[in-house]
């Protein structure tokens, strides 16, 4: 092999990028440890002594509504991503492994959904949900986020690569029904790709602000994003509430960062290779 001189400039640029990306995260980590008094007096990078007190105060805020938001986010993102992954996987399998009249039309129409900006959808979705009296419910946030055209596209690509035709043929010769082939042959082979789709959908729903912001009025149903926004809107003029907002922000990013660091090998944007490499 060639000698590999380490370029100081490329490494320096990358590390600069890393520092830029870590800056706000480390700031919130340090700031959450400061008591309300320390927040404005201690140096930016000096940890304070108020972390536990801040967490206790956040627990007490409106009878622990913050943890309710966390739980709601888990329900919306977990439930939504699970349903979304199943729908995408089954659709992707059908589009990849069957030839039938209308296949291209259905695929193109479904995929065309990628280009529809969510603004044309979120407002009328709210109006339609309120017409049937379901606007301020869990369903109003959960249901519209199940269909995800790009996930169907990814699932189709993955099914083409991961499910061999010969295996389906063999199953058919043995007399297995198509539903059985889907459940026992195709889906198990597609699991690694489905994990990736699940993760991306989980993050997309967890991070979504517009839809729940429009749909929900009752703060007991808010996900974290809308809850933290309401906390900021209430506390922006009261510096005494800043430590509460900062602590909430820190606690709200811990679950996703944990998910992200533990599931690293599944964070891929390209599923055409079939099997996942580490």
């Amino acid at each position: 092999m060639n000698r590999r001189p380490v370029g100081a400039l490329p490494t320096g640029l990358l590390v600069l990028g890393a520092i830029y990306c870590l800056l706000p995260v480390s700031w919130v980590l340090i700031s959450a440890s400061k008591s309300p008094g320390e927040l404005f007096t201690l140096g930016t990078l000096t940890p304070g002594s108020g972390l536990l007190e801040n967490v206790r105060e956040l627990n007490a805020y409106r009878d622990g509504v913050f943890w309710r938001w966390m739980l709601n986010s888990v329900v919306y993102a977990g439930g939504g991503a699970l349903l979304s992954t199943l729908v995408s996987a089954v659709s992707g399998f059908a589009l990849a492994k069957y030839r039938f009249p209308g296949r291209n039309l259905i695929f193109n129409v479904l995929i065309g959904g990628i280009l529809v900006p969510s603004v044309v959808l979120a407002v009328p979705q709210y109006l339609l949900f309120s017409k049937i009296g379901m606007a301020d419910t869990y369903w109003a946030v959960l249901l519209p986020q199940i269909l995800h055209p790009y996930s169907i596209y990814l699932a189709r690509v993955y099914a083409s690569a991961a499910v061999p035709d010969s295996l389906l043929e063999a199953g058919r010769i043995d007399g297995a029904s198509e539903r059985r082939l889907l459940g026992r042959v195709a889906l198990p082979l597609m699991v690694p790709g489905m994990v990736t789709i699940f993760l991306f959908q989980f993050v997309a729903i967890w991070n979504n602000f517009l839809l729940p912001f429009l749909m929900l009025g009752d703060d007991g149903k808010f996900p974290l994003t809308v809850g933290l926004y309401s906390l900021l809107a209430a506390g922006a003029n009261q510096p005494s509430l800043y430590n509460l907002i900062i602590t909430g922000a820190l606690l709200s990013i811990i679950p996703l960062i944990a998910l992200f660091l533990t599931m690293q090998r599944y964070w891929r944007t390209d599923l055409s290779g079939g099997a996942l490499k580490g």
Partner: protein
Amino acid sequence: MHRRHGGARLSAAPYLFLAPAIVLFILFLAVPIGYTVHLALRRTRVSGLGLGKGSRREVFVGLDNLRAAVTDDELWAGWLRVLGYGTLVLVVMLGLALLFALLLDSAHVRLARFSRIAIFLPYAVPGVVASLLWGFLYLPSLTPIGGIDFLSASAVTYSMANVAVWGGTGFNMLVLYTNLRAIPRSYYEAARMDGASELAIALRVKIPILVPAIILTTVFSIIATIQVFTEPTTLRPLTNTISSTWSPLMKVYRDAFVTGDLYSAAATSLVIAAVSLVLSFGFLRVVRGRAFGEGR
């Protein structure tokens, strides 16, 4: 090509498997779009004194609402702000994403794994929280960088663009990096043998191969940027330099939920959708023309 081994059974299965997606598509995509078009073409007319039932009727007004949306000064001001903001975000975010992807892929860097994870990390931070963190970092009473008012009228666009760049670079970097890793090494071994520098390989071999992925990320970023809403809405409580109609989507929100004018809101959202379709298809056309021109 006929594949009839399954007989009649085979023909129903794919439709059944696709049924959930099709039903969801109709309920949560087609119907809302249809309803938006319906509203955009109508308006309430008040007859008489506007009292009592039946005095307020929904009437068909054709393209009036759309005409009003297209000629609305407030909306135009919003478009101009988003144009400046969006150009900045697209160029800096995608430029950095490409730079970092190429650096990670080159053989000459240390700390690549650490940097890759750190740069992708903001993807795990919701836009609301990112705006909130940066918003506090911008506040004069908390900022570690003195002497600049990040939330002043002249700086707020840059400050907001910074939040979007911070949040979006990592994901786009990952898309481009994944594409780079898929290129067989043998592609540039030859160039390396000939003594080509890493920079030359990046510019002459890697970037041309990446063009389709760059186009894809650009189109997705254009669509997302036109709909900017979360960042200005979250930063608004911290400053008075962001108006309630800062971006076109914020105006839709105000029309629909604050002033209660659903018809204008529907018309404006159709205009936003049209602009985003025209821009993404226009961009595709331009780059396609270019790419083919170069290929000959």
